[in-house]
């Protein structure tokens, strides 16, 4: 299988890989953001709980 | 105090809003002036070639009407919200939907109707034919009330929020797109030699549907915003 030819996609390389590339990138970003949001939320909740304990 | 009938209240709301607006005539006029300026910007921006202008005309006038209508939405509920009148309106035993409809009618008379009346003058700037002008005015006559109604829904949802006019526009403009399409479509049809009847009847259908649903939905939105 000629990989160079495969990636060239008969000249449409930019369009095809650009589409899939951005799609996969955005999905990855979404996953990272959701996981990050969970971390931050837990952190904030712990802060609030500790702040309440101090009173 | 004797109890007002439902339609009595309706008339009262309209008269009150009109009276209040008359005291601040500048507000009404600025919307109108905005409309005129926006429409005049286009020939300046794209050149004065008559053929192109004639083709662009319905689109330009309609987009300007949409934008002008968005501008004046802030006024619909916010003044009453700020001075507490809106809260009183929520307590009224008569239907809130009719009250909202009254506000919508007043809003249209102050923003939509002037646009309808101004449109022929502006259409002439674009060298529109008499027939096209007539259809344009008629499409605006049927369409601008729908814009006011959709706008009322947006204004009710965003009552008191920061974000202000931009947020309302973001919410309302996508919903107004069908009106835009058929409003301009009517004029394009007639300039192309075809009847504008289908476009105009669809606009009429939108008008009827909005009349049935928007006051009720907007009243619901008001209650949500005011809790």
């Amino acid at each position: 299988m000629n990989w160079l030819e495969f990636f060239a996609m008969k000249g449409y390389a930019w369009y095809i890989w650009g589409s899939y590339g951005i799609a996969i990138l955005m999905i990855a970003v979404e996953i990272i953001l959701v996981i990050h949001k969970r971390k931050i939320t837990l952190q904030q909740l712990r802060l609030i709980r500790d702040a309440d304990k101090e009173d | 105090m004797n109890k007002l009938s439902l339609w009595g209240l309706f008339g009262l709301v309209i008269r009150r809003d009109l009276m209040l607006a008359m005291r601040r005539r500048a507000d009404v006029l600025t919307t109108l002036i905005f409309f005129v300026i926006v429409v005049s910007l286009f020939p300046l921006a794209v050149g004065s070639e008559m053929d192109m202008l004639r083709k662009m005309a319905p689109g330009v006038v309609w987009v300007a009407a949409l934008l002008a209508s968005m501008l004046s939405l802030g006024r619909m509920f916010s003044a009453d919200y700020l001075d507490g009148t809106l809260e009183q309106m929520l307590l009224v035993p008569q239907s809130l939907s009719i009250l909202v409809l009254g506000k919508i009618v007043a809003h249209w008379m102050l923003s939509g109707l002037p646009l309808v009346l101004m449109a022929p003058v502006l259409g002439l700037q674009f060298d529109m034919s008499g027939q096209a002008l007539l259809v344009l005015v008629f499409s605006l006559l049927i369409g601008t009330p729908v814009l006011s109604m959709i706008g009322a829904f947006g204004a009710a949802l965003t009552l008191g929020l920061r974000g202000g006019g931009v947020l309302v526009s973001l919410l309302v403009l996508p919903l107004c797109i069908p009106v835009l399409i058929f409003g301009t479509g009517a004029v394009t049809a007639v300039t192309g030699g075809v009847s504008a009847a289908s476009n105009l009847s669809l606009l009429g259908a939108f008008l009827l549907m909005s009349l049935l649903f928007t006051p009720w939905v907007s009243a619901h939105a008001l209650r949500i915003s005011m809790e």
Partner: protein
Amino acid sequence: MAINWFKYAAPSTFYGLAGKLVPWFAWPAAILFCVGMYIGFFVAPTDAVQSEAYRIIFIHVPASILSMMIYLIMAGYAALGLIFNTRLSSMMATALAPTGALLAFISLWTGSLWGKPMWGAWWVWDARLTSELILLFLYLGFIALQSSIEDPRRADRAGALLAIVGSVNVPIIYFSVKWWNTLHQGSTVKMSGTSMHIAMQQAMFTMFAAMWLYAIAIALLRVRSIILERERNTQWVTELAEMQQ
């Protein structure tokens, strides 16, 4: 064994369930995605009319269909929350919105990149793409509205009303744009022959399933954070394992 489904309508129980379900959707999604890409790129043949460029449809079409489906599901959840006053339903709607918007964006981006080699323009005002753009605006409006309202209950209800009105409008908008488009453009999507090669169908279906499972997984994950934030003052949150640190 009788399962008390209504038990899971409470945020406290759903939180645990969602956490357990995520991997069951995430892993199959990833696997199906790889399988779909394989079929799409290595099994499906080159199209006679559109050459290699048609392969974009394997991500474009599922993204479009899903973005519309998710909007309706989101509106459905929001409506449930509005009618039955259930907090969790509204939280699910809020959790679905960003994913739906993302898919709408991917649909537009890939659609544009497909349009350029096929019809020579970065943007073609065809009915589907234009409706997709408006759908994106509807999503963004929903997200913007909810972000600008501080009170969570008002945000839930206002968003619900907007989503419901939006869903009623989606068919109207689609019809209007379709009508408008027939005036201005003739070209429709044509591939060689009227029926698609079986491998193309398989790839499309697999990718669709993959993305659907992904959407469910990510929404469940997102709703967990939303639940935590909204329920922060409750006993069960303070007693969670994650919180013991």
